[in-house]
């Protein structure tokens, strides 16, 4: 079992998820996320790890016909964020997300980071300026862009764009940040930068990261969950998952016999 001193930030309870075509993509997932810890989701393609991640900010609500069963409860307020009475927009204001491919808006660097604040109706220019600077510093991008904040975002390199997306997600002070294979489109140096950044963000917030790269999970995460065919096979301390997993399936996947 997991050894931790950290309180639970959010937990999924017996979560099932169905796509609009009827496919049951998640089967009874029960799993906690610990506060200010990094939890990694690993598993072969199509195992449901991205689907699970996208439940946390109700991304599936954007497409008609998808349905959830079960709960994701956030602490300390005990809100079930999958409840019909909870607005997905409220959930997304608390839980932000970084995507697989860097997806900056075709706007300036500044506007990209400030967008979350604009959505919240923040009009005070000083406040926005300060927040943008803080977020860019938090995403280790400030020094590279401080002299060209009003350049278009797509003039940045891929790694910088991804850090910009992290800054955008950071600017609104989220409680949890979701990373959906954040380095799969990046070169090794940019990947190392992002991983280092994630370790630093761990001091501020709770992180859930999907990765197809097992070394990455081993390097950055505190806890690791192995999923297969929509089920949670094993969830434990990252060290234990990678050195002494208790399930045979996990061991086969970790050692490369399968997947």
């Amino acid at each position, binding site marked *: 079992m997991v050894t931790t001193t950290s309180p639970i930030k959010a937990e999924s309870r017996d979560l099932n998820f169905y796509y609009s075509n009827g496919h049951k993509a998640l089967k009874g997932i029960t799993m906690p996320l610990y506060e200010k810890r990094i939890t990694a989701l690993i598993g072969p393609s199509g195992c449901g790890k991205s689907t699970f991640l996208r439940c946390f*900010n109700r*991304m599936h609500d*954007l497409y*008609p016909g998808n349905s959830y069963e079960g709960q994701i409860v956030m602490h300390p307020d005990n809100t079930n964020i999958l409840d019909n009475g909870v607005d997905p*927009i*409220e959930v*997304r*204001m608390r839980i*932000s*997300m970084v*995507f697989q*491919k860097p*997806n*900056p*808006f*075709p706007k300036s660097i500044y506007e990209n980071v400030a*967008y*979350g604040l*604009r*959505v*919240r109706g923040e009009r005070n220019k000083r406040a926005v300026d300060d927040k943008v600077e803080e977020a860019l510093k938090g995403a280790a991008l400030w020094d590279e862009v401080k002299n060209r904040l009003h350049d*278009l975002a*797509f003039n940045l390199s891929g790694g910088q764009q991804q850090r910009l*997306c992290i800054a*955008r*997600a950071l600017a*609104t002070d989220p409680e949890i940040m979701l990373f959906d294979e954040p380095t799969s489109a990046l070169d090794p140096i940019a990947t190392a930068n992002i991983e280092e950044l994630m370790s630093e963000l761990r001091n501020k917030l709770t992180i859930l990261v999907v990765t197809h790269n097992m070394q990455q999970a081993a390097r950055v995460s505190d806890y690791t969950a192995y999923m297969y065919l929509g089920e949670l096979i094993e969830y434990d301390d990252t060290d234990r998952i990678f050195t002494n997993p208790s399930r045979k399936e996990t061991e086969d996947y970790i050692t490369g016999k399968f997947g």
Partner: protein
Amino acid sequence: MTTQASVLANLAEVRAMIRRHKRNDFIFSIIGLLALMVGLLTLLILFVDLVSDGYQRFNLEFLSNYPSRRAGNAGLLSAWVGSLLVMLVTFFSAVPMGVAAGVYLEEYAPKNWFSDLIEINVTNLAGVPSIVYGLLALSLFVYGLGLGESILTAGLTLGLLILPIVIVATRESIRGIPVAIREAAYAVGATKWQVVFHHVLHYSSGGILTGIIIGMARALGETAPIITIGALTFIAFLPPSPITEAAPFINFEWLSSGFTVLPIQMFNWLSRPDHAFHINAAATGALIIVVTLLMNGTAIWLRYRIRKNIKW
């Protein structure tokens, strides 16, 4: 040795094959070029023909004179002012409605059999003959709503005519926005309206503008529906000016004024027996083509300008 010989034989065969395939390339490029030329040359010949007939009338008086019984004095003043005012009404009726409808269909409408039905109908509307719009407008605008044979009626009719063009252009360019960009906006907590207003409209504006201008260019040349609703063919006055010298500096009397437009003036001149009027008609035709080309050119330029700043 035998292997070397077979390699050489094989190589010769490969080269012969490549030559054959390249010949197909060449043949198709010729066919394509010919097909393109048929279209372009026809337009060019038409234009040259109009210009060679009408060039004597290319002067300022032609634009500043009212129509007249004497061909040499007749001008286009009331026609081009009429066209301009009608286009103004068309723009302000078709653009807000078309863009709103396109955004609704693409972003808000639930996807079911009903929205499919609407989609088919919108596409169909674009293919309805323009004279049918004229008949509709005659019974709806002229008699039903009592708007009379006015600039307002003509503008609304043409607005209706290009509405499907604007809707389709809006939808097409909205569809070009990648899902990743939308999700990025939703993920920071944007509402649907914020996504539409801050992103969707912004990034699709190039395509939407192109659709609007192409629609307007089509409306400029439309004749049949305007005749149906009873545009005048000979008017020697201008509608009241939309801008006045005294406050509130703007008036809407012109909306209910009688009018004529460029293609109708042209039609009128063409139907006269006197050859001198045919020269005027040719000059008008050339003018319409030039304005249309300018509008389409603007559309291309605008699209290029806006796309330059957007990369996914």
